[in-house]
């Protein structure tokens, strides 16, 4: 999955004098206020952080409240989806005109019917709504499916993604993984994509594990 990156950052956290005997706690608390918000300086949504205090000596600010600045080095896990990136998420709702997806458990995404390729047909089977591909057998998207989609736009303030299932390399991840070689021959570019798909597929399994790892590390950080 694209859109995730790890950045190194040099930070300074200003701590109130009342917390001078619990500086690590104060620093962690300050950093946790960054979580799940888009930060312009980092150019991404902070998902997790790993922090090391650089210097035991901190400069005291002049002024009414003598805050002191603790220098840190941090590794930040950032989520920064850009247009035309491929993201993965879980379908939580499906209607005739839209697919609602949740990415990484916190970001909502919507794919409207105009952005779903003609190939996909909305059906109701056994009471469940789903989108089934006409040309690709068994390529089905329903509630609970993990899908890969293209980013059209990302609302940084609300962390809301507008997505697209038009490109051929989007759809149910499971199906894509199994059928990466079986792309329709008619499209050369599709062929080319299928080669890179192979990498993506290999990468895809990696990314699934990565997600798991990421989630784990997030828990680990917060416990700290």
């Amino acid at each position, binding site marked *: 999955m694209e859109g995730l990156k790890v950045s190194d950052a040099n930070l300074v956290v200003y701590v109130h004098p009342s917390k001078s005997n619990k500086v690590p706690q104060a620093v962690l608390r300050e950093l946790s206020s960054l979580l799940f918000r888009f930060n312009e300086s980092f150019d991404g949504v902070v998902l997790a952080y790993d922090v090391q205090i650089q210097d035991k000596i901190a400069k005291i600010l002049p002024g009414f409240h003598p805050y002191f600045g603790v220098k840190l080095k941090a590794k930040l896990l950032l989520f920064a989806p850009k247009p035309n990136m491929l993201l993965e998420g879980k379908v*939580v709702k499906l209607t*005739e005109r839209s697919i609602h997806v949740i990415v990484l458990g916190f970001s*909502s995404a919507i794919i409207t019917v105009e952005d779903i390729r003609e190939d996909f047909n909305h059906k109701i089977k056994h009471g469940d709504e789903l989108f089934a591909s006409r040309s690709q057998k068994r390529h089905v998207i329903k509630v609970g499916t993990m899908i890969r989609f293209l980013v059209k736009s990302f609302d940084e303030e*609300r*962390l809301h993604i507008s997505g697209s299932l038009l490109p051929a390399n989007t759809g149910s991840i499971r199906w894509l993984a199994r059928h990466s070689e079986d792309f329709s021959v008619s499209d050369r570019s599709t062929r080319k994509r299928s080669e890179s798909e192979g990498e993506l597929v290999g990468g895809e399994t990696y990314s699934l594990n990565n997600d798991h790892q990421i989630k784990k590390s997030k828990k680990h950080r917060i416990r700290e």
Partner: protein
Amino acid sequence: MEGGSECRVNRSVDYSPWVDWSSGCGGRTVEARFVVVGLELDLWWWIGARFGPAETTTISRVMGAEEFGYNVKAQTFNEMEDDDFNHFSDSELVYHVRDALNSVSLGDCDSYNQLVGVMHHSKGLAPDEVALLVTSLKALSGAVSYIDISLHEALLSSIFDMNMWNYGPDVMDALLGLIISLASSNGKYVESCLEMLVSSFTPPFSFMDMLKQPRGIAKKDQVLSRVHLALKHIADLVPLAPSKLCPIISRKMPIYEKEPMVVVYAENMLKLESGAIGEFVSSTMLMALMDTLIDLDVDIGWDGILHDDSSKGIFQMEIEDMDEFADYDEEDGTEDTLLQFPRELSRKSLGGNSTAEKLDSLMVLTFEHLKSCEVSGRLTEVFEPLLDSFRITVLTAYKSKFAQFVMFYACALDPENCGVRFAVLLADIFACEDYPLSFRMSAVAYLASYLSRGNFLSAPLVASILKRLVDWCFEYCNRKGGEMNPTSHRLFYSGCQAIMYVLCFRMKSMIDVAWFKPHLLLIEQILKHKLSPLKVCLPSVVEEFCRQAEAAQLFTSSEEFNFNDLLESEHSRAFGGMERLDMFFPFDPCLLKKSDRFIRPHFVYWSMVRPPYDDDECISDEDVVEEELDLDVSKMSITPRNPLSYWISNGLEEPRGMPARIRPSTSPESL
């Protein structure tokens, strides 16, 4: 097909082609021969068109207009018109709405305006108008991606202004469908959608009287169950929505509205707390509720509680209450003399106070919620945010009057966990040097009152907390001891007073705790120290304590203290400071009528206490007359040893009493 209303088809409608249906339908073939011009007529027409035999339409379900008392007749379109028309599917309606929306940017606002008009129409809807509204809402749900936040501002604001209470279930469902679609389609609408739902927590003003009636209660269930379900759906689709919901709820709390509104709103908050999205909002909801309780609490003026003439001992009030309480309704206490029912009078004056009424109702709501949490096993989990809220809000408020009883009740429901936790927290705050002085003094005042008044607290627990206090005071004497100085050693004196106060209530049970004995000896040393707590602490507490200590033969030697039956002295005022923490007994009997019924079974009234000098059952006095002090304080009186001599010797004498009220002194430095 269930009952439908009469379809009025205006045959003079101009059927002119308006939109080419066949294009842009995603491969589905549609044969539409007739398209109409004005939207209002359109939809009526469509409604008629949908009464085809084969199609199960959503509209037909809507047409059940029984609740409006209409005699509905099912009429199929076949009966009315030629069988030429095809049925319009939902997608066709959506396209129409889409086109209405898109045409705004092209300058053509007619259909759009009509759509807005449909949304605005909310009162006294006839069944066909209901159907129109439902169709429009459903069509809009499918066309949310075409709604532009600036172009279609009128439409959006009319949607967000709708209050669910004004409509029947079908409209509600359609409206909620639209709201959920809007919220999940674009992050920009999430807050407005949430605000709309929170506005639907309370009914419009016109509904308020109906709320208590069965019809109103049924309607409330109908509305609120749907609103909360919608909130859950939105949270499922937009995971960050709950974090946006909490500030909206806190902000929109109608605290200054009438009591039924406030109560309904608070009901919603508690419903959220224990509901599907509870894990995300629980602590915020509880804290917001406690904040509201405190806001109301500080708004109740002391005039509401003080009854200047009475200043009777609470002791009698409590006795009378116990006998008369069962009969007490809105009874006018004036048939009895002023002497006998002063408490009822002060309750009455409080009863007229609308803020007190609101607080009373909210506290009862909270109590009931706590009870249901206890039943479902959630009390411990709910207690933590309550405790935090207490520490942050209640403890810091200037002399909270009743809000703290929420904690009392929660502890009473679960003495072993919550009860202990509360006591330990207060003791920890007292002992912790990081906190400011008045905070620590306030904590120990709460602690003393709590330990004395909770009948669910075990003797070992009380003893262990007292032990901590005693150890702390003893160490203080040795470490910082000096001469008597009320202002320099405020914390010490408040600690001593707390110990004495608790022992006044629990002397016998503390003596019975074997391992506490050595601490009783320590107490003697503390009290006899140069710091002279006996001279500084509140005289009435000291007197009562000394009487009991003497009777229980606690001390090896006893010094005589003559306070002239003063309730307070200049020394106690000095250590009590601006806030008069020397006279702060927060868990004194609760004056809120409805809340008191919950508290009563767990409460220790002074009259229930059997001090060591009172080994025989003594009756209480009814006619205690107090001297009117310029301080205007009422106190708890105690059963005098010799009633006759007491009254004969000094006509208007103040009884020795336990100071139990929270009345502020009227001396200059008090607030």
